[in-house]
Each structure stands twice: as C-alpha cells, then as structure tokens.
C-alpha cells in the first residue's frame, strides 16, 4: 500500500475507534446496573444503598399479595440456591402472565429500608419449562 494511503486508513481507523470508544464509555457509565441474586443484593445493601439493580430470584411460597385496587403485586423474593435469604418486593404495574409461586423472576428497581421497589417485573419463560431439569443438575 502506498504510504499516504496507509496513513489515510490509519487516521480514519483511529478516529473511528476513538468515536466508538467514547460512545461505549458514555453508554457504559449511563446504563450500568448491578446484576445480583438475592444474597448478593443483601450483602451489598449493608455497605451501600442499592439505587439501581437487576435482581434474580424465585417467588417464595404463600407470599403473593395483590392490591385490591389496580395493578401490581407484592411478594417475597428468595435466593434460588439459599432459600433463607429473602427480600420483600413491591411492584406497581402489569404482572406478567406467567408470574406465580416458584417462578423465577427478574426485577429492576431500587432498594430502600430493605424493601425493593421494582419498576419492572419479568418472569423467565419464553423458552421451555426446564426447571426440574435445572434443579437436578445443580
């Protein structure tokens, strides 16, 4: 390759990489959330407030309470592995169709005074019912 051509490519690539780098950096700093399971969230809350986090866990037996007026649900989320670790969850919004006792859920929101206020509630599902399978392997 001719020398000036090589520098054209080099300069454009560096510019491109710098732009991408900047976009990634600002994207990461604005859109990061903690991905935690229940035990990790409890451990972390002791040292610092949990302002933005995504939690994974299972809906504990006999804890689902639906409000009399409007949408939403409150329940206790337990750690998928260690059932003794639990967090109280408050959620206002549309409860997914597959939400039930024992379902694995993903919630996003913030935690204050050991109550987690969820902005979104998703149940794991759209693929297959392989829960039995997973517990067997675990």
């Amino acid at each position: 390759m001719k020398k000036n051509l090589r520098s054209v490519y080099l300069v454009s690539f560096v510019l491109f990489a710098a732009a991408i780098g900047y976009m990634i950096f600002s994207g990461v700093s604005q859109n990061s959330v903690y991905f935690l399971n229940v035990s990790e969230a409890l451990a972390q809350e002791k040292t610092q407030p949990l302002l933005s986090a995504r939690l994974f866990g299972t809906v504990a037996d006999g804890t689902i309470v639906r409000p009399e007026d409007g949408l939403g649900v409150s329940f206790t989320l337990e750690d998928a592995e260690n059932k003794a670790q639990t967090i109280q969850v408050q959620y206002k919004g549309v409860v997914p169709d597959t939400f039930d006792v024992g379902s694995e859920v993903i919630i996003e929101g913030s935690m204050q005074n050991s109550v987690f206020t969820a902005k979104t509630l998703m149940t794991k599902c759209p693929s297959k019912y392989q829960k039995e399978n997973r517990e067997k392997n675990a």
Partner: protein
Amino acid sequence: MTHFAHLLLMLSLTIAVLGTLFCIVSLNKAKTYAVGLLEKANLAITLCYVIASCILFFGFWSYDFSIKYVHDYSDLSLPLFYRLTAFWGGQAGSLLFWALCLVLCGAYFQSTEIYKSLSQETRTWYLLFYFSMLAFFGVLLTTYNSPFEVISPAPSNGRGLNPLLQNPGMIFHPPLLLLGYGGFTIPACLALAQALSKENGSETPWHICTKPIILVAWLLLTAGIVLGGWWAYMELGWGGYWAWDPVENASTIPWFFGTAAIHFGFIEQYRNKAQRFHTLFMALTCVSAFFATWLVRGNVVESVHAFGSGGVGYLLLNFVIAATVIVFAVIFYMPNKGTPFNGLETKEGFLLATAVVLITISLIIGFATLWPVISKLWTENSVGLQAGFYNSVILPLLTVIIALLTFCPWLSWKQGLSHGRHFLGVVLSFLVFMGVFWALFDVKEPLPLIAASISCACMISWALYFAVLKYPLAKLSPVLVHISLAVMALGVAFSGPYKVEQEVALARGQEIAVDSFKVKLLELYEGRDRTGRYDFLEAELLVTDKNGKEVGISQAQRRIYASFPQNAYAEASTIFSLGKEFYATFLGLDEQTRAVLRLSVHPLVNWLWIGGTIMSLAPFITVYAMRRRKLENKQEKA
C-alpha cells in the same frame, strides 16, 4: 426404537471420529488420499441422522411418552402440527435438528459437480474440519443432550408445549436460525481447507463453490431473526419487537459476522483482495454460531429466556475457544496473496468500512452481553448493561452503515466518484427528506431524524443505481436487499422512539384517547376455543380516529390453556396499518370488573416486517440467476 436411535447417534459419532483421524493420517502422508471412502462415511453419518430424526418425529406423532423428550414437550391435546414441530422445542431436539441441517447441507454440497472438481487434498482438508464438527455434535447428542432418554414405565400423558410456543412465528423461528447456522458451516470448512491446501489457486475458490449455500444460509438467518422479532411483538405482548435480551443479541452475532464476510467476499471476487479477512470472518461466522448457542444454552448470563443448562455449557465454551484458536492459526499460516487496498474514497474502501463497522457492532454486542461476566474481573458484584446502552451505541452505528451504503453505489473501484451527478442527487434527496421530516412530521430528535432521512435517501440511491445499470437480473437481489434494509431502518427510526403506550382500566361503554385514536370498550365475552384447547376472556374494542371514523374493532384475549391451568396468557390484537398500528393487550379484570388493558400505538412498525420479508427472499434471485447461467453454459458446451 429409542435404543436403536441412540445407537445410530453413537455410530455417527464413531464414524466422525474415525473420519477425522483418517483425514489427519492421509494429510500427513500426502498423495495417499482416500476421499471416496470418507465421502461414503459422510453419507453413512447423514443416513444415521436422518433415521434418528425420523424416529423422534415418529415418537411425537405416535404420542410415545416413553421418550422423555416427547413427554416433556408434548401432550395428548396438542395438534399434530405443533406436535411435530415440538421436535425443536427443547435443547436436545434443537441440537439434533442443527446437526441434521448440517449433514443435509454437507450431503448436498458433496453431490455438486463443483465439489467434485476440487482437488483431493482440498477435499480431505474440508472433510477434516467437517468431520471434527460432526464429532463434536456426536459428543453433545450422546452424552449431555440425548434426545432419546427413556422414561419407564411410560407416563400416560406428556407435560405439554409451552403456550407461548404454540404460534407459527415461534415454530419457524428456531429452525430458520439453525438452518442458517448449519449452512454457514460448509463455506467455513471449505474456506479453511483452501487456506491450507497446496492446490489452492488452481481450483475454483471456496466462495464461488459455495455461493448458493452462503446466500441461502444468510437469508434463512435473516428470516429467523426478523421472525423472532415479529413473534416477540405479536405473541409475547412484551410491547416491542426487540429488548436487547442476551438471547436476542446472541442470534445477531453470527448474522453481523456473516454479513461482514459477504462484503469481504465482494472485494475478493471483484478485486482479488482481502482473502485472509474473507476466510477469517467466514470461519468466525460459523464459530460464533456456537458462541451464540453457548450464550443461550450455557446459562452464562441471566436472561428472560429460560433454558436448562444441561451441562453443555463447558463443552460448548471449550469448543468455541479451541475453534477460534485453530481459525486464527490457519489464517496466520495462510499465504497473503492480495494486493494492497485502494483509497478509502473508493468502492473498495466503502465495502471495507462497511465490513469493519459490521464487525465492530458484532463485537460490541458480544462483549456487552457478556458484561455481567466480564465485570466480575474487577468488581465483586457483576454489572450488566441496560437496553439504553445498545440503543445509544448500536443504533448510531447502524445509521453509519446505512449512510455508507447510500453513497457506495456512486463510487468507482479505483478512485473517487463514478457518477457525480447521481451522487449529488442522492445527497440532495437526503437534505430534502431531512427538511420534510423536520417540518411536516415533527421529527426533532437528531438520531431518528438522520436515520429516517438517510434511509429514504438510501432507497432512492439503490433504485437509481439499478436504473443506471439498466436493470440486470443478477444485480436485482443486492439492490432489493439494501432497499429493504433501508425500509426496515425507517421502521426502526419511527417505531422505536415514537411509540406511545398506556395502561388503562375501562368499564363497558367507556371511551379513552390513545395518541390519535379513541378507544371504546364495547363488550366482554367469555368462551371456549372450538378445539377445546383453551378458555378465553375477550375484550372487544371499537377504535376510531380523531374525527370519529371507525378504524377497526380490536379483539384482545386472555386465554387459559387446558394443559397449563395455573396461568392465563394474553393474546394481543392489532389493527394493521402501514402508518400507526394500534395494539391492545388484555391484562385482566380489576375488582370492579373493568377491563385492564395495555394500549399502544406503533408508528411504521409494519415496514420492519415488509422490509424483513423482502430482505429474506431477495437472495433467491441471485441463486436463480446463477442456476440459469450454469444451465446456459452447459447448453453452449453441448
């Protein structure tokens, strides 16, 4: 029966391992090739997989619940169509289906004349990669992921298929992806084979030999991804077609690599350059399909799509790492025959830039999806990225791609513009569209404004290009693919940022305004599906526009399936429109028996499906044109 099927899989594993070893031995002792024997072995493997798959199909057809897989994914009430397609409803079955796609592609390619024209050495190298791939599938299917596990005594009924999967969109989405993955394996193996073979240079290059396979694999992958989005939009009531979920992201990685490889392919085909990049990215397309499967099946990153891990995770990860190392080693060894690139302001430069941006997107998606795992390196608690990250990084890059391909047709291969006036016309149309969107459609945000205008300019550019070329059939499919991509981009630019959504509780006869629509709850119904598969509750909505003119009646349902009585499922209802599409999901009844509904308006969303459909069909035109040219050549010779 099942034991026999399991034996067949064991047999194919054995043949694949022996085949791999045989290839290594014969490559070491050059000039003692026994390609004929290896090809027969390949046919034997194909036969094994076909029979094993038939046995599984038969198990579903005949309600054979003694097969654990059949028991897990079907039941007595499931209609025949869904029973047969439950074949790929689970992990073991979908891996078997992938392997089946792969061997069928392999058997087809082996039967082509162009394959037979390749040298013995190249074919042996090809079979080496191909057999080792099959050996890996054999290990997966006979150990952790056997679809032929037996339950004894056989249960009287199965567990049934997840109602969300009982939808045509979901039935065709996975096999399309798997067919695409399987298809890309053939060119990848041949590319690596020619990189190593000494006969390379005297025979037809791999990307010409396998061009129909590459195109068909690409269009199937495209169709699979688009169909997945459509399914998420129509069936899941997630209120969108794309959520940047790990599983969705995973399926796009091979697509971006594959598309980049195809663009390197144009540089190689027309300019005889970039051979090593081309080979590298075709091989990585194939490897990234396994990487995607690892992301999906290995329980690596928590996702809304739940899968059992089933122990395949480590196997897949090891395979991906080993394959990547081998691919890079081959590329390193491969002689560099290409001449240097011309300047950036040429067709070559733009093709290269397009490929680089595609690869960048793929890498960013891959790393961002793995961010919860990567961030563990420096923090105790893993950190993940929200959808906002992808929207702020990937969408601008996709806009850059549209911009590159808007102007690319007007550049010459060697230097600068080839059609100055047309180029200026396209630039002008871009500015005009920007003005129109700004003034008439009130699009004020920069990214949607630029994306929408450049997409429209892109459509004009490629239509004009086709006219300048005097409408050759062979060029029709790239023209259509790029125009339909621009159509999809236009759909994304509007349906993403300008979606309106609200949740409401409506009493009978009550009316409410959503965006420019007025919605009135006419009636609530209860009933049972004719086949008895589910009971439903239906909200009948009258939708009118601002002037009170009827737009349509929307019938959103909640269903309770007989096999899954514990949950109700929403069946969303839409009123089709090429402009603003009205979308209703029935969420349930509140205490005062008001219907709780999620009502949303999606502008231009249907252009995504229209663009996606054209994009997935257009490559067939090239395949057809190639076939016709081949027949004509034959007739001339005769």
